[in-house]
């Protein structure tokens, strides 16, 4: 090939793109698990569990994400191991915990939006508490939760850029590397377009789901 520099940069860019995708998808999955568990604890747990889940939400929503990431990176930094992969792990954990706090609030309001008499009706038919949640409460909560969760996942994709602050080689970090090598401004344009290729389909999927799940109340 005639442009070894271009090839190398394109390869690097591709890796950064992949890292951003994996980081977004991984953190979304983890934050959904965290959010569902903590929200359930908040709604159905005892008073101590409730105050813990509340403290978690208030702490991580009200401190800067970059500081949280730095903190986790420092905590995880192994003193004498190969550190090349560590920033991505720290970023994954940090983004999951941070986004999980927002997911908690969304899931909690979704659960609370379901009339408690729905649970009574389900339990009266002999369904267990878990069955009542699974077949009656959650399907109804999902409908209220889909649009805000969609917006959270779009915000999450954009927040992965902050992981460049702890040297995770995602899109933005990679663009910086290429820029410093080539002196070109174009990597940043490519980065914006790349984020857009992720968030635009997400926004489309969310609006589709919203319409499919809609039902008259």
């Amino acid at each position, binding site marked *: 090939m005639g442009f070894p520099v271009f090839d190398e940069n394109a390869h690097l860019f591709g890796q950064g793109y992949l890292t951003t995708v994996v980081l977004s998808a991984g953190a979304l999955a983890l934050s959904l698990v965290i959010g569902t568990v903590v929200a359930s604890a908040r709604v159905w747990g005892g008073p101590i569990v409730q105050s813990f889940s509340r403290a978690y939400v208030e702490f991580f929503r009200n401190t800067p994400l970059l500081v949280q990431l730095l903190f986790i990176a420092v905590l995880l930094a192994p003193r004498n191991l190969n550190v090349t992969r560590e920033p991505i792990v720290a970023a994954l954990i940090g983004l999951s915990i941070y986004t999980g706090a927002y997911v908690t609030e969304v899931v909690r309001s979704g659960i609370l939006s379901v*009339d408690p*008499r*729905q649970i*009574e*009706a*389900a*339990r*009266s*038919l*002999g*369904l*267990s508490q878990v*069955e009542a949640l699974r*077949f*009656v409460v959650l*399907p*109804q909560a999902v*409908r209220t939760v889909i649009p805000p969760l969609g917006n959270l996942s779009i915000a999450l994709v954009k927040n992965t850029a902050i992981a460049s602050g702890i040297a995770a080689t995602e899109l933005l970090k990679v663009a910086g590397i290429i820029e410093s090598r080539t002196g070109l401004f174009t990597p940043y344009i490519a980065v914006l377009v790349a984020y857009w290729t992720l968030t635009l389909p997400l926004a489309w999927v969310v609006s589709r789901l919203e319409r499919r799940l809609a*039902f*008259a*109340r």
Partner: protein
Amino acid sequence: MIEVRDLHKRFGGLEALRGVTMHIERGEVVVVIGPSGSGKSTLLRCVNRLETPDGGEVIVDGRSVNDRHTDVNALRKDIGVVFQSFNLFPHLTVLRNLTLAPMRVRKLDRATAEERARKLLVKVGIPEKAEARPTQLSGGQQQRVAIARALCMEPKIMLFDEPTSALDPEMIKEVLDVMKALAKDGMTMMVVSHEMGFAREVADRVIFMDQGEIVEQARPERFFQHPEQERTKRFLQTILHH
């Protein structure tokens, strides 16, 4: 079938039930009346453990409701409940509302559950609404679906908590007709209701509650024509003359 002994229930400082003792025989239809806040719903809800009493005992079909060893889900399979506010599942079609519990709890296969559900929809007079959503139905239709949903579990007992109180007057009859048919089929029923016509026509016994106590109970003719207690007389006057 239902045996309630010296039942007590308080909500904070408020005594909702103050030593209620009563029983309902198999096949009997008992109508419970009384002023708002007298503890009728609380009593009914104690029968299937939606409320846990602070004292006393409830025995349903030989099983002690609040015993630690009693499987509450198994108990509730046999007790159908119809609420004032219908409480249908809005995310499911009428048919799925009926088949959910039989399939999950009674472990019926889909075909059997649907066959049973469609028969019940015929019985309550709305077979054509099987695929509709609850929100597309009138109040009277929703309550009939709620009755069919409870019956789909083939319960031994049906509890009704003011099933017609949320309905427009023109829809009350269609729901009462379904309940009358059920009573004539021999279902054991406990009905909290102020529908005096219903009580006169199908009740075997009327129970009058006031301030967390049973004040008086009698066969309907006796109850309405010759009430013994002053409180009963006063209450009957307020509901019969307005």
